[in-house]
């Protein structure tokens, strides 16, 4: 666990400094870890596993938007777990469940070696449709159609700078949209 902790911390430090390769590696490593962690959390709360992938994506989005709240001096795994717990509880509350948060986090936090693949794709797409024009178009192009920023700027006839801004605002709006839902 300590090696992984150090590796992730290294990748995150690099990512915050602008290293996209390290950032990609970090997020790719976080996804299966989070999937496993959220599954076990839901099981511990006695809830079904339908929303696992949605929650995993919400956590990744939060990790991305709030990565500057990680204090580089402190361990990164507890920080990631804290976000995961927060978002899991949010998701469950949105569905109308009353959650009593256990005081101790008694769950083991070893990342799983083999994790089951996602059960189904998430519902994140349905939040994109009602968004404002530019943000919606950019998110569609980049997140759904898989374009790069330069490709998106060509297709949408926007400057690269404008695409970047719209992407960032779109992602922030996506996070906010989750908060407002009552499934």
């Amino acid at each position: 666990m300590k090696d992984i902790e150090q590796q992730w911390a290294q990748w995150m430090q690099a990512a915050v400094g602008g290293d996209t390769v390290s950032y990609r590696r970090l997020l790719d490593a976080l996804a299966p870890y989070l999937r496993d962690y959220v599954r076990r959390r839901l099981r511990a709360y006695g809830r079904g596993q339908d929303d696992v992938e949605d929650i995993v994506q919400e956590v990744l989005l939060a990790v991305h938007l709030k990565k500057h709240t990680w204090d580089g001096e402190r361990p990164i795994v507890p920080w990631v777990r804290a976000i995961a717990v927060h978002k899991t509880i949010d998701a469950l509350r949105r569905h109308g469940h009353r959650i009593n948060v256990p005081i101790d986090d008694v769950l083991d936090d070893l990342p799983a070696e083999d994790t089951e693949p996602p059960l189904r794709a998430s519902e994140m797409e349905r939040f994109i449709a009602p968004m404002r024009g530019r943000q919606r178009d950019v998110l569609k192009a980049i997140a759904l159609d898989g374009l790069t920023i330069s490709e998106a700027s060509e297709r949408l006839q926007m400057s690269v700078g404008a695409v970047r801004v719209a992407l960032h605002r779109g992602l922030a709006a996506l996070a906010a949209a989750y908060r407002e839902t009552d499934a």
Partner: protein
Amino acid sequence: MNTDDLIRSLVQDQETARATQVRRIASMTGLCGIGLSLAMLGVILGVRPDAGTALQSWRLPFKIMVVGVLIATSVRAYARAANPESLRVRSLGLLLLAPALLFGGVIFELLDGPSSEWLLKVAGKNPTLCLIAIPCLSIAPLIGLLMGQRHGAPASPTLAGALTGLLAGSLGAAVYILRCTDDSPLFVAIWYMTAILIVTGAGGVIGRKLLCW
């Protein structure tokens, strides 16, 4: 959307590579708030005329020190609150330092004159002004500091809001010191602390809604 697509988008979103640290933003917006409060004080109330004589007693320096300690410990708690990991009790414990000092001052004051004067010292010259002015002078800092905290990811939005209110209240109190002519620790313990707690409570209520992430 599958997770891989999301990850790809996140990696491309370099806008967040720029520092949006709570500290950085809160310093700017907080200072603006303080500046506004100082302007408010200057225009509406003005500075106390008897500062020179007042400084000769131990009370005014002591009052300044207590509020200063409160600000310092509140800043620390406010910054820690931006983290998704729950605040440790230790971090909050430090907040008791200012009240503890104040308590010491209260004891000293009670012993520093006849008991017949105690009630007079508690009542002071203008408690109503204090109760109104400190929250009013805290509004601009509160708004600025809340804006800063919105960039954080607090484990408890309510607690983070309350700590923001506490800091804003302390700053409002600090500005009010420039005008306030009531220096007795007895006065400060009742009226200043009540006013600051009002702002703290307001911060908690607002934070519950505003600081979700």
